[in-house]
Structure formats: structure tokens, C-alpha cells
């Protein structure tokens, strides 16, 4: 503690200068005082850090990291580029509204891989957030993609049975070195996956599309299914690619030898004379679903092919990213702005009713004799200690149409039996239940501030001629304002993020933005949108806090006397 006093109380630089004009001032052990001080300060800081380390770690792990993750999720958009890598690359080279054959071919490969890996449905779900209909489009075409190019495959295998043999393809396309390693792997009979397929130089040069299509097939077969390419017949896509390669390069067979050459020569001839039909992926896609021929579909893919996107944030404020920039959503799809406004307004109303109801009680508590005040305090704290769910459910019993309150009103003849008041499953229900639940958060800070206001002030005011009201309004009330501030901040910030009470008593009109967040987390699984909504909510709260600090000053807020 002595070190702290020195460092806090005595600016060491100036102290050393005045005390020792000749050399550095020395501590008792002969080291320069400055160094000795710095060391002990450092030690102290370390000790302080160690003391708070558990809390710091806890906050980092449970608070900062999740928030970081949330921020990341709200902009991250890897799924399109990860699921359709070839399409995204091909789209970059093709600026036309509805792209040409290379993009459709890339799409066919990507989609075939995605279907095997079962990722196309997730992609559809993701893109559906931006444009309704993408989900069913990708699911539907996902089912059709396996059959695409079937007539080509049939024609090729009809020409020569050997094309049905997996070995034929391996012999044609594989790198001899890979064949060697594969054979060793097969002989070793271990359970590790087959060595990744590698194509020969000749195949890569003369049959580029075939190699690309086959590589995709090989990757899925080996890595995802754990099978061997030597035992699986390739997808139809590979047959189409081979036919396309031979159409583009009829002499490709010359780069190969033996059986391969003979088969390719035969196939080349068949491709040339039309025995093996030419097919267009574009036609096959459009046949699967007309939407593939429409510019809208492709502009969605193009717009959301980047790895990061503002899409979720735009969505969270009822905007969308169209081909011509940012635009409003259709009126019937707009819900979030309205929800944000409703959340803010209702939180304000709830805070207001808390002040109205809480202030007199806190005043009573602070001014009654100790024994009565304690009893009242227990009445305030008892609901505070009761489970939130129990209290909310109790409100359901009280407020419903056949509930206690309506029954009493009907019995008293205030309302007719036919038109009982709707007090629940609407905004009224949310306001009543949440006011009750948040009331202690208003009363407690108010009480502790009022407790600290000396009674003599009001007596002095009265003795100087003020009537009761003036004494209260001019003397007492201003001193209790910091308590109102603290209570309001607590109530408002708690209210704005409330979830369970609006969910239970709010119906459809009395729910908050947090209910929508919960819905997107657990039902619709749109975690990106949930993250964006959460981030906006966080930003709004911080903005309001900042505004409050500017207007009222956070120093004026007191949580205790």
C-alpha cells in the first residue's frame, strides 16, 4: 500500500529532480528510485490483474467472444462461394444477365457435388432469405441434377460396355504415379481414405472438362463416401464432359495409347456423327425449372456470391439488395422496423408506468417508520424473488377473458358478460405483466436514493414558508431525480431485450424484437439474421445510453445513497 501512496501522491519525476540535483535519487537498496518504483508498480499491476483474471477470463469467454461471433455471423456469407465454387468463378467471367453454357456446366458440377454432400438444401435456405423461391428451386433441381446428361451416358455406354467400368476411366485419366500409390494403399488394406485422385498430364491437357468433372466425382467418392474410384461408375456429368471434350478436340485420342486410344477414337467418331447427342446444360436446367432461365435467379446468385454481405443487416431493417442496389422490401414482407419501433415505444411506456407506480411506493418506504417500511419492503422483494415464469403465468390466470379480473368486473357490472376486456395476448397484456415484473428494478434504486435525502431539507423548506407541494416539488423531487434516472435505465434496458413475458402474454401484437430473434435462432434457423437483429438491438441500447449520458449525465445516476 505504501507504494501506492507514493506513486499516487508524489509525482516521482519532479520529486527526484528537486531532491537530488546531482544524480538519480536512490532507494534504500541502492537501485535508482525511479526503477524501484516502476518495478513495484508493475508488480502491483500484475497482482491486480491476477485478482481480476478469473472475471476477465469469464467475461471474455461468455460475453466478448459470443458477441464477436454474433457480429461475424451477421455479415458472413461463405456458403455460396463454398457450395458453388466453380459457378461463382465462372459467373465472374460472364457478365450477361442469364449466363452462358460454361456457367451452367459449372453449376451442374457444383450442384451434383452439393447434392452428394447434402449442402444444396442449406444453400437454398440461405438464398431464400434474399429471394423467395430459391429454396424450392435448389431442392427441385437438386433432385433432377443426377439425371442430367443421362442420354449422353447411355449413348456412350451403348457404344462400348467398357465405359460402364470404373477401371476404364481410371486407366484413361489417372496419373501413373497415383495408380501406383493407389495399388499400394489397396494392398495395405488400412482404413484410411483412398489417396486423392490425380490426373495424368495428357488427360489434363487434351480432356480438360472430363478431368474437371471426374475430379469432382473422385473427391466426393473418396473424401465424403469413403469409397474407391476404382469401384464406382462416374456421374453422367463425366460422360457429357468427355463428349464435349471430343467435340472440341476430335483428335484428342492421339495423346493416348492402346485401349484408351481405340475407345476415344470410336467415341470421337460417334460424337461427330451424332450417335452421342450434344446436350446443353442450360436447356436441362431450364427444363428442370424455368427460373434458371430468368435473370432474377442469377442476379441473386451474383449478388450473394461474395464471402461477406450486408444482406442480413438490410433484411433486419426491411431492405434488400437488389440488382440495382438497395431497395425497400415489399410492403407485405416488412416487419422488422415496425417491431423495433414497437419494442422501443412499449419499453418506454413500461418504464413510464414503472416510474408512476414505483415513485410513491419508494417514497413511502423511505419515509415510514422502520418497522412498517420493512414489512412493505418484503412485499416489494417477495415478487422480485419469485420465479419469472410463475409470475407471468399468474398474470395469464388474472388477465384472460375468463380470468379473475374480468370475472370481478363482470360481477361488479362494470362490463357486460358479452364484451369482456381483452387484457391478454395483446400489447396491454405485455405492458401490465412487464410493468409488474420490472417494478422492483425501479423501486430499489429510488428507495436507496430517497433514503439518502436528509429529512431536514423538506422541514427547512416548510419552515421557510413552502407549502407541502412546493416543498416536495422544489426541494425533495430534484434530489430524487438521480434515482429515477437509475431506475429508468435499468427498467428500459431490461425491457428492450425482454423475451419470455411478451412471448407468453403478448399474442402476436405484443411481442418484441427479441421474440423474433429467438424465432430465428430456434425455428427458422436464420442465425445470420438473428445476429444482425441482435447487433442492431445492442447498438440501439448503446446509442440510447450515450444520448442519456449527454442529456442527463451518467454521473447523476445513483444506485445507492
Amino acid at each position: 500500500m505504501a507504494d501506492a501512496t507514493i506513486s499516487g501522491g508524489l509525482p516521482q519525476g519532479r520529486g527526484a529532480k528537486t531532491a537530488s540535483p546531482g544524480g538519480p535519487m536512490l532507494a534504500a537498496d541502492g537501485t535508482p528510485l525511479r526503477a524501484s518504483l516502476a518495478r513495484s508498480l508493475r508488480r502491483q499491476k500484475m497482482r491486480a490483474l491476477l485478482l481480476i483474471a478469473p472475471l476477465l477470463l469469464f467475461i471474455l469467454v461468455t460475453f466478448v467472444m459470443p458477441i464477436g461471433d454474433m457480429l461475424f455471423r451477421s455479415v458472413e456469407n461463405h456458403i455460396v462461394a463454398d457450395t458453388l465454387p466453380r459457378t461463382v468463378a465462372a459467373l465472374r467471367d460472364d457478365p450477361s444477365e442469364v449466363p452462358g453454357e460454361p456457367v451452367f456446366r459449372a453449376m451442374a458440377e457444383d450442384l451434383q457435388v452439393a447434392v452428394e454432400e447434402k449442402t444444396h438444401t442449406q444453400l437454398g435456405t440461405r438464398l431464400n432469405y434474399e429471394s423467395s423461391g430459391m429454396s424450392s428451386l435448389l431442392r427441385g433441381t437438386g433432385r433432377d441434377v443426377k439425371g442430367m446428361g443421362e442420354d449422353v451416358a447411355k449413348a456412350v455406354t451403348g457404344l462400348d460396355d467398357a465405359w460402364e467400368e470404373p477401371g476404364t476411366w481410371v486407366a484413361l485419366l489417372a496419373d501413373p504415379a497415383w495408380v501406383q500409390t493407389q495399388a499400394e494403399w489397396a494392398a495395405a488394406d488400412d482404413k484410411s481414405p483412398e489417396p486423392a485422385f490425380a490426373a495424368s498430364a495428357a488427360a489434363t491437357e487434351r480432356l480438360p472438362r472430363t478431368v474437371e468433372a471426374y475430379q469432382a466425382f473422385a473427391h466426393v467418392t473418396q473424401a465424403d463416401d469413403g469409397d474407391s474410384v476404382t469401384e464406382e461408375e462416374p456421374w453422367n456429368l463425366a460422360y457429357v464432359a468427355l463428349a464435349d471434350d471430343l467435340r472440341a478436340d476430335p483428335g484428342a485420342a492421339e495423346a493416348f495409347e492402346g485401349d484408351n486410344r481405340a475407345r476415344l477414337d470410336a467415341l470421337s467418331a460417334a460424337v461427330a456423327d451424332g450417335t452421342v447427342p450434344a446436350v446443353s446444360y442450360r436447356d436441362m436446367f431450364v427444363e428442370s425449372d424455368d427460373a434458371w432461365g430468368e435473370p432474377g435467379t442469377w442476379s441473386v446468385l451474383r449478388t450473394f456470391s461474395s464471402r461477406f454481405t450486408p444482406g442480413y443487416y438490410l433484411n433486419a431493417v426491411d431492405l434488400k439488395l437488389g440488382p440495382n442496389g438497395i431497395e425497400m422490401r415489399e410492403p407485405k414482407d416488412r416487419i422488422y422496423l415496425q417491431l423495433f419501433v414497437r419494442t422501443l415505444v412499449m419499453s418506454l411506456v413500461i418504464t413510464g408506468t414503472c416510474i408512476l407506480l414505483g415513485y410513491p411506493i419508494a417514497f413511502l418506504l423511505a419515509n415510514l417508520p422502520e418497522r412498517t417500511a420493512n414489512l412493505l419492503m418484503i412485499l416489494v422483494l417477495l415478487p422480485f424473488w419469485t420465479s419469472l415464469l410463475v409470475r407471468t403465468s399468474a398474470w395469464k390466470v388474472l388477465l384472460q377473458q375468463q380470468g379473475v379480473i374480468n370475472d370481478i368486473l363482470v360481477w361488479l357490472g362494470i362490463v357486460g358478460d358479452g364484451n369482456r376486456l381483452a387484457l391478454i395476448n395483446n400489447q396491454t397484456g405485455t405492458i401490465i405483466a412487464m410493468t409488474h415484473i420490472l417494478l422492483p428494478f425501479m423501486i430499489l434504486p429510488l428507495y436507496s436514493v430517497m433514503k439518502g435525502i436528509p429529512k431536514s431539507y423538506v422541514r427547512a423548506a416548510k419552515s421557510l414558508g413552502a407549502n407541502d407541494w412546493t416543498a416536495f416539488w422544489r426541494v425533495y423531487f430534484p434530489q430524487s431525480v438521480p434515482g429515477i434516472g437509475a431506475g429508468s435505465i435499468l427498467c428500459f434496458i431490461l425491457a428492450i431485450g425482454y423475451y419470455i413475458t411478451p412471448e407468453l402474454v403478448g399474442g402476436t401484437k405484443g411481442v418484441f424484437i427479441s421474440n423474433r430473434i429467438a424465432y430465428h435462432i430456434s425455428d427458422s434457423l436464420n442465425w445470420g439474421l438473428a445476429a444482425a437483429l441482435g447487433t442492431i438491438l445492442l447498438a440501439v441500447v448503446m446509442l440510447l445510453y450515450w444520448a442519456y449520458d449527454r442529456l442527463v449525465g451518467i454521473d447523476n445516476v445513483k444506485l445507492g445513497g
Partner: protein
Amino acid sequence: MRITKLLGSAALALLPMAAPVLAQDAATELPPCDGCSDSMVIMSWGGAYQNSQLKAYVEPYQALTGITVTWDESSNEAIAKLRAAQEAGNMPYDLVDVEGPDSQRACDEGLAAEIDFDEALAPGSDGSSVEDDFGDSLINDCFVPQIYFSTTFGYRTDVAEWNGQTPDDICDIFDTATFPGKRSLQASPKKNLEWALVCDGVPADQVYDVLDTPEGVDRALAKLDTIKDDVIWWTAGAETPQLLADKEVVMGSTYNGRLFSVIAEEKQPVAMLWDYENFDFDGWIVPAGLDEARMNRVMHFLRFATDTQRLADQAKYIAYGPARASSQPLVSTHIDLGIEMAPFMPTNPDNMKNYLVNNIEWWSDHQDEVEAKFQAWLGQ
């Protein structure tokens, strides 16, 4: 042979005392489980349904094998939990109970393992193959069916404003003039859209054709708009029974087993409106990527828990129909109340004069679009 066997089982099922006998019976046919883990985490729905599973086959299985079973009651958000677990790379669940459409979603997204039914499940006690015995309930490669249930309506029988009339037509839901009062409907487009279209004049077998058209969903929502102000929306199956019992609603949709509880167990003045009940399946999925020991245990359990007798046993605790055809003749009486379960079964011919079957393929294709549309409609 077959008939004596059936009669024998039925007779045993009538006696509560028969439980240990059955267990012994099963012990002889339960093969040992080699290389199996000795515990399971099962996700289910909680409540009466989970209890029926516990009594009908989980407790008997535990008695035979001595493994521990931990329940996780979060099936209503099963897909979210499975996806989160898969992202985290740590799958805490061994077996998950889901409705048919969710199984489709899990299967499509690779969250659930594909199962070879012929190998994994027991053939029917009447000798029928797995495929024949389960029939239409084998909706995809991941889903092991347990029961079929229907979503249907219950109504209060003591509403004075109705002047002695009772609803017997699904479209009475939309008739607020003859049947005034609040209704409770599920806060989900599923089933509500189908009913709305049926009551908007669409023949039942064309409901999904109409929904498939661009204006189909709007048409259904427009029909729902006519009663929107009279609807309390529920998210948990227990809400409608509660609302009916509290007189908060005069009619409402929920799962038929819940209504059975209100009528038969709670003895509330509530009756069932079976018109156009909407069938759906509930069953097991196995999370993808379990290690071998856990997988062995789960498959061992599944074979036992979905055999003919076990599925029939489940109907003693809850009014849902067993998914196996061979279990149907074994359905008898409620274990505590002693009443015949057949009149409460959704598959009773009297109850299925008009019915809809939830089109899982259509819904899994269009769920994302329609759900977003419906939620926006609901929020406005």
C-alpha cells in the same frame, strides 16, 4: 399360428400384470449387444408422449440391458440443436424424436444418418417385411417411424352462444357467425393453409396443387384473414387443451393425443371434430457421425423399441396409432383408465371419413418460403 399369437399378445396386454411377462418374453429374443456404449441420450417431447415411450420401451429396455438413459426434452427445436451440435463438432444426442417434416429436413441437410431399414428393424410379428409393415410411414431414408398422429380440432360442448349447435364440419372453424368465440390455431402455416383452402372450396386432393401456384398461399392466407381477429396462436401442443379448459377458446387445433387427455383424463366438456384431420408421422432419427459404440447401441435399441409389440404397447399410454400395420390388432385399452383406445385413434374409420395427409415433400421444398410469408402475415 398367427392368430393365436395375436390373441395371446392381446390377452396379455389387457392385464397390467403382464408387463414382467412381456419383458421376460422379450429377453429371450433380445440379442446381446457387442461393442455398445452403456448409455444413451434421447431427445424427445417431454410430457405424456415421452412418458409413453418411457413406459412402453425405454424402461423395459433398460431392465433388460442395464444401460442408463438421459432424456433431453427439446424435440420442438431439434433441428436447431442438431445443427448447433454439428457445427460445434460435438454430438451429445444418440437418438432424436422428431416429426416427419423435421426428419426430412435433417435428412436433406445431412444431420441424420441414413438407415438400412431391412437390416436395422425387426420384421413384423405377422411375418411381414419391414417395408410392408411400416408402409407409407417410411418417408425417407433416415426416419424410423413410431406413430402416426393427427392434428385436429376440439371444441367445447357447453357454449351457450351456439344455441345447441355443434361444429361437425372443418369449415365451422371459419364460420364465426354460427359459432362465435375465439379459436386457437398453430402459429405455423402447416395444416392451417390446407384447411383454409379446403374451406375456400378446393377439393382435398388438389390442395397442394393450388398451394403450388403463385397465388395459392395468398388465397389461403386471405381465407385465414377472415378469422384472424378471433384467433389465439399457439406454439406448444399443450396450449390448446389449456385454453379449452379455461374457456379462453371455444375451439382449437392440436394433436389428437392431447385432446384425448382433455376429454378422457381431465373429463372436460370438450369433444373432437375429426373432420379433415391432418395426418403426420413421428419417429426417430439418428444423428449423423456417431462413433461405432454409440451407433451400435442406438441400432440395438431401435430394433427393440420399434418392434410390433413395443409399438402396440405405446398405444396403451397415449392415443396415437402405431406406425406398424402388424401392431394395429394389438392395440387395446388404456393402461390406467381401462377404456378402449380405438375410438380415440386417428385411424379409426369413423374418424377418418375426411382427412388430409401432410405432404412432406411439398413442405420440405416450400417450408422456407411459406414460413417467411406466414410469419410476415402474422406479424402485421
